[in-house]
């Protein structure tokens, strides 16, 4: 298992700072949730990890190796990503898309080995899409497609898994299933989530971004406070311990929105 370290990562796009000096560590086997309001820089931070973006300052390290000095294929063998790109251009079958997760491990058009095909089968079974194996991906529902893409990332056999809003389009059953799978996977996981209650249950640590700056980081019980929700999200909410598990849960009703400090005026 690997340790992922974002060291003072800054990203400016067209002169505008999107992420400022972000320092964040994902210890081996930990699940770290990146939360924050829209436009706070969560996706941008993740893009630096799966290398769609090169930080303008700072560096991303995996087990003491600088990502920017690593060939793309090498980092793709260690870091898998679920991006916000939902749709493929072409109507591949589910099976074919999942198998493409092996791309960084294979040369040219080399066929999948028996072990790799079994790996694909297991990943599809784990994400409950095995029955869709022969279906075209373009005819799937949003949630089904999302699960196929997670299976594809798992097949990559990464040490680090980066997921951008993985619960998008998923029904409650699959949201809970996915997050408990992440928790039990033993992988180092960096995940952005909008559902704070799910984030509190699933993540070992939460990191809160606001205007590109890390404003809080720690175990959910320390991070998720009524003050933080007011400051970062502009929401008046009550935080109570879950009656069964004790993890902090956020309760809110309509009419609890304050003038937000979390969104630009």
């Amino acid at each position, binding site marked *: 298992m690997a340790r992922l370290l974002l060291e003072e990562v800054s990203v400016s796009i067209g002169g505008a700072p999107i992420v400022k000096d972000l320092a964040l560590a994902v210890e081996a086997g930990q699940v770290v949730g990146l939360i924050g309001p829209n436009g706070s820089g969560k996706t941008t931070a993740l893009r630096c990890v799966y290398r769609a973006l090169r930080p303008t300052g700072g560096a991303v390290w995996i087990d003491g190796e600088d990502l920017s000095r690593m060939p793309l294929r090498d980092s793709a063998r260690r870091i898998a990503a679920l991006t916000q*790109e939902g749709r493929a251009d072409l109507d591949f079958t589910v099976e074919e898309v999942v198998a493409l997760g092996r791309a960084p491990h294979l040369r040219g058009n080399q066929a999948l080995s028996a072990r790799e095909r079994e790996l694909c089968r297991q990943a599809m079974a784990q994400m409950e899409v095995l029955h869709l194996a022969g279906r075209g991906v373009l005819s799937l529902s949003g949630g089904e497609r999302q699960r196929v893409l997670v299976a594809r990332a798992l097949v990559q056999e990464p040490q680090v898994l980066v997921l951008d809003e993985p619960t998008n389009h998923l029904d409650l059953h699959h949201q809970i299933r996915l997050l408990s799978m992440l928790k039990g996977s033993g992988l180092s996981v960096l995940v952005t989530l909008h559902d704070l209650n799910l984030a509190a249950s699933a993540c070992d640590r939460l990191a809160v971004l606001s205007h590109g700056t890390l404003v809080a980081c720690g175990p959910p019980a320390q991070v998720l406070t009524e003050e933080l929700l007011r400051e970062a999200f502009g929401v008046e909410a009550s935080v109570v311990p879950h009656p069964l598990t004790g993890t902090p849960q956020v309760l809110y009703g309509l009419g609890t929105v304050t003038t937000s400090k979390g969104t630009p005026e």
Partner: protein
Amino acid sequence: MRTMPEPPPATTFAMPLIVTLLAGVLALSVLLAIGLGAAAVPPGETLRFLWAAVTGGSITAEEVTAYQIIWQVRTPRVLLAVLVGAGLSVVGVAIQAMVRNALADPYVLGVSSGASAGAVLVSVTGALTALGIYAVSAGAFLGALLVSALVYLASRGAGGLTPLRLVLTGVAMAFGFQAVMSLIVYFVPDGESTSTVLFWSMGGFGAATWGALPVVAVVTAVTVVALRRFARNLDVLALGDETSVSLGVDTVRLRKGLFVLTSLATGAMVAVSGAIGFVGLVMPHLVRLWTGAAHVRVLTIAPLAGAIFMVWADLVARTLVAPRELPLGVITALVGVPVFVVLLRRRGYLFGGR
């Protein structure tokens, strides 16, 4: 844990069998197409003439005319149709993947209008005379390269060649070079320039010679082999640029490579046969309907299917109203459009949308 229903059996696509079958159909089509025409020669005779030509065998004096039609006129023509049909089909597949657009074809980046403008310019000014009969083709090739270079420079940006910018720049360039071509014809309105324009914008294999074949053969072979080698990368590219990077595919480099390869190939094909429309747009879709989307299958079947289609389209073009010849682009469109529309409607075919 819920029990999982067994997945439906994966679509088995008996590749070697189908490739063998298509190769057989192609060989047969070539033989028939060489024999058929204004002066029809039975397949047996055709084979005998071809054999004599290859082995240096002898034929009788009264067979000389038929022999020459077969060997000097029709064989290079049909072989050129094979090469260009195969080449346009695979380039179409690659371009659609590169610009992520179902409407793209080998000419979407303006290559054909550049080639036409180059050819017309050479034919009216008499430039490049040192190249003899290849002068106009060379002009077309240079025009194609010029447009490609311009499109490349204009659509280059921080994130490499972005798909949308490529398409928009290409379309704009095409308009620009069409205007240049019209301008030349306007100022030099002789029959020569008009027929050059007509030939290059409709395409055809009427000018095929043995001399031009080796170059096109090499270009087509290299293109087919190279693109097929990158089949999995093209699959990955279709999942989106962000995902591609996360799967270790350098999209910036891949697009650059695809751009250079497809531009050279299209330029070479346009230089010898003009801009034969429709094949490079429709063949990729037809093949995908049959084989599914995976590029390793598409890029294996597309060259064979494209070659067969082109041989028959050319045969129809030169025999339908013989001894006159119809422009090839007319035939490819007249045959291709209805087939395409019917197939699209009949099967649930999706390309980036419903």
